[in-house]
């Protein structure tokens, strides 16, 4: 099971030999006799943004939760680099009205980020003025920004985001995805995210994993957008969304976060692997 493997991995010391921060190998989750996800393999490496896209019920959240050890897996395994600081932005979080909290306190409830780091993160996501507010009084978009701020204030090695910009206005959406991409550059962290915003995602992602219970297709956004599986899942117009932002995607990033030309970036090692062609993982 996933958790046992995590412990095993932590016991054996340094980062994964293949350099992955977190990797799923043939992962499967069964609930009520139904495979929610099956035979899913993917890896996130430092400085890489991996985005999971897929229709409703494709198992996106299940995959994310299984990779975080929140969901018991029934097949395959999850490996995580030891000593990894994870920042997690869940799809939703309800805070009981009976809990007296401020935004500032919520920021340091789990990690012990410094006051300066908290202020900076709140400012970065655009809610610096709400530090002393009660989180229960925030709007959906503000709260989503708060969750993102909380995760990044930890200076994570791996940032895991489940629909991080739901409820955020369109302007804010682009700004927040820019922020995530910038954090990847600054911290060199790996990013694993689930999103519905195809056009924004496609512009700022290194690897797209198209999920529908299993991995339909994967690779750099340019490749995925043109693949027949992607078009079948999202319709022919989905491919056009890429064109809108394509001009922004003029560079890639090496493992240390440095900028490299796009052509060099597409070596096989940076691809997520599907169940179908695991050889890519080596």
């Amino acid at each position, binding site marked *: 099971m996933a958790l046992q493997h995590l412990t095993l991995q932590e016991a054996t010391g340094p980062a994964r030999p293949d350099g992955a921060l977190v990797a799923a190998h043939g992962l499967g989750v069964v609930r009520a006799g139904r495979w929610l996800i099956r035979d899913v393999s993917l890896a996130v490496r430092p400085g890489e943004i991996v985005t999971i896209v897929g229709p409703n019920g494709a198992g996106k959240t299940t995959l994310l939760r299984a990779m975080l050890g929140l969901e018991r897996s029934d097949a395959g395994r999850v490996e995580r680099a030891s000593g990894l600081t994870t920042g*997690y932005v869940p799809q939703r979080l309800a805070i*009981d009205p009976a809990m*007296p909290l*401020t935004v500032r306190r919520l920021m340091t409830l789990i990690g012990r980020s410094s006051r300066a780091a908290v202020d900076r993160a709140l400012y970065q996501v655009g809610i610096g003025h709400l530090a002393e507010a009660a989180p229960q009084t925030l709007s959906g978009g503000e709260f989503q920004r708060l969750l993102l701020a909380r995760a990044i204030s930890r200076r994570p090695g791996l940032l895991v985001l489940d629909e991080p910009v739901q409820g955020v206005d369109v302007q804010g959406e682009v700004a927040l995805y820019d922020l995530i991409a910038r954090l990847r550059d600054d911290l060199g962290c790996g990013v694993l995210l689930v999103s519905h915003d195809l056009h924004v995602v496609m512009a700022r992602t290194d690897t797209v994993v198209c999920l529908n219970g299993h991995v339909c297709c994967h690779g750099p956004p340019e490749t995925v957008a043109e693949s027949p599986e992607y078009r079948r899942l999202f319709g022919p117009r989905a491919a056009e969304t890429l064109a809108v932002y394509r001009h922004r995607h003029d560079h890639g990033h090496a493992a240390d976060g440095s900028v490299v030309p796009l052509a060099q970036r597409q070596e096989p090692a940076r691809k997520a692997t599907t169940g179908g062609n695991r050889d890519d993982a080596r």
Partner: protein
Amino acid sequence: MLDDFFVRAVAAGIGVALVTGPLGCFVVWRRMAFFGDTMAHAALLGVALGIFLSVNLTVGVFAVMVAVAVALSLLQRQHQLPSDALLGILAHATLSLGLVLIALMTWVRVDLMGYLFGDILAVSADDVMAIWIGGLAILAGVCVIWRRLLADTVASDVASAEGLSPERVRLAFMVLLAATIAIAMKLVGILLITALLIIPAATARRFARTPEAMAVLAAGIGAGAVAGGLFGSLHLDTPAGPSIVVAALCLFLLSLAAGLGRPRAREG
């Protein structure tokens, strides 16, 4: 000083209130009111089994409550019935089992009302000592797990994903809650313990800006309710346990009235 039954009752009651305040906050935050109630109901089965097996009653009560908590977590793994239905089954089944078992033991006379509604005026000096030592131990335990339990209470999945292991903290909290109910039983009885957990915490909410402040305030409000209830009971010749709960209710209503005076748009 502890010679006087009334002084002993106040000392015991305040000792219990100082523990039920902070734990009650978590019961409120985690929406475990019905869970607390179920544990308390199970206490009567613990009493019955304790008498039947001739073991220390507090030990019997504690053991049965832990068993019920474990049974609940096992039952929750089948995702067919909701938790509150399971709790309802366990609460009333254990209470009834306790009552039936006590009735079957015709050779002992059990003061049932004392267990159901408390018998604080009968506490001995030893009881007071036991309550304070046990209470301080429980409070120490709460302090040790405070930060992790709070993280788990507010954002369980996030805490778990980011490397905290909530299972152990949750288990520790359950054990502390069971211990609290075991020592609070004598005070207000198993049917009223939940009131002592929830009402002071709910009263404190309006005045607290941080979780810690709410816990401390709840302890103070609980102590006030115990003192007020016992004095009322002495002067009006009313039963002590229910009088304490009525005093707590009065404080809660006062807090509601105080809150009406200052509507809050957005804190901070």
